[in-house]
């Protein structure tokens, strides 16, 4: 299948000379940025935020299906990541470590919101707009985004997380299993069910020809 791994080599340690006070003006890898933040250059943390905020926001919003809550959780995730940066040993990629924080924080938020909210969301599922307002606005793209928005709204938070991490972030099922703290089999089941849900939606609405 056509799938790019955007996170490859993101944590490669480069042999760079001693850094100056901040990393501004260069394109350092994640580990370099983390080292700089640990040395006291707190503002360098914004490099990591710029790198991951859209991807994290996509994951949170697709799981929560509520923009305001998603914005709040995104802030919490970055604050948590900053507070726990010392516990990041570099054994895994920063992205994987950070996504684990994002996933768990979002789950905690969902638990806090209780089941009523989830039911409410499912009932208005197809009307929930979680499209990117800055995205391409051509008719075909709008239709695709509308369909995708409808699909994601119908998925459970775990299915939405798997679909987002697999298709948007290009992570493997093994990496996703690590983030969700589950086994590869479960990840595959969630992915297959998500595809089946979308397939049924396409079939139900006779969108097969339109999407060709």
């Amino acid at each position: 299948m056509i799938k790019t791994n955007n996170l490859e080599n993101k944590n490669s340690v480069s042999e760079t000379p001693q850094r100056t006070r901040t990393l501004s003006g260069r394109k350092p890898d994640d580990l370099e940025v983390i080292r700089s933040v640990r040395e006291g250059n707190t503002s360098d943390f914004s490099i990591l935020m710029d790198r991951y905020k859209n991807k994290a926001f996509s994951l949170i919003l697709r799981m929560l299906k509520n923009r305001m809550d998603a914005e709040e959780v995104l802030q919490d995730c970055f604050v948590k990541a900053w507070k726990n940066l010392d516990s990041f040993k570099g054994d895994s990629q920063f992205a994987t470590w950070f996504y684990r924080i994002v996933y768990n924080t979002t789950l905690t938020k969902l638990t806090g919101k209780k089941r009523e909210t989830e039911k409410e969301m499912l009932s208005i599922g197809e009307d929930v707009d979680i499209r990117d307002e800055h995205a391409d606005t051509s008719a075909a793209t709008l239709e695709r985004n509308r369909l995708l928005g409808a699909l994601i709204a119908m998925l459970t938070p775990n299915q939405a997380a798997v679909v987002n991490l697999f298709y948007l972030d290009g992570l493997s099922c093994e990496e996703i299993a690590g983030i969700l703290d589950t086994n590869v089999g479960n990840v595959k089941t969630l992915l297959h069910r998500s595809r089946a849900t979308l397939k049924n939606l396409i079939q139900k609405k006779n969108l097969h020809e339109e999407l060709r």
Partner: protein
Amino acid sequence: MKHYDEEFFNKMLDDEITAEEKELFFVHIKECTACREQYRLFQSAHTLLLSLTEITAPEEINNLVLKKIMKPAAKKKNEKRFFITVLSGLTVMLLAIFGIVAKFGGTEPKGGNGLFDNLGNFKFDTSILNKILSPFSSISKLISPDSVLLVTLLLSSILVFFLIERTKKN
């Protein structure tokens, strides 16, 4: 006729099917409309998911987060600075007391020059120290010149260690 199931279609999409199985499948869907249709639907779903895009996070997120994390960082830094200042002050004070006692202490001349007596031994008298500490006479009895020297050296070492650490971090 045996039909293919959803698990097989998913495996097809994930490229987890052998070449032989694929060949058999393509032969099958030439004849079987139901399987062909199901496979096409799965392909459409897969293609649609591949077009999943990033959702842009609010622009102000960086400032909001930095505001939250900068406050504790500054507080932590100030606490550290205060600790180092207090420690430095204490050490300097003790060094000064030690210096005064060593230089001017003692009412009975022991001879020699400056800080050393005729035999070349370090000249140290606790009389001034005792005067300073007279309100705490019981404590002053416990203090010997050796212990003052030891404590002073210890505190000086701690001060030097913290100053080095601080310089390294900056």
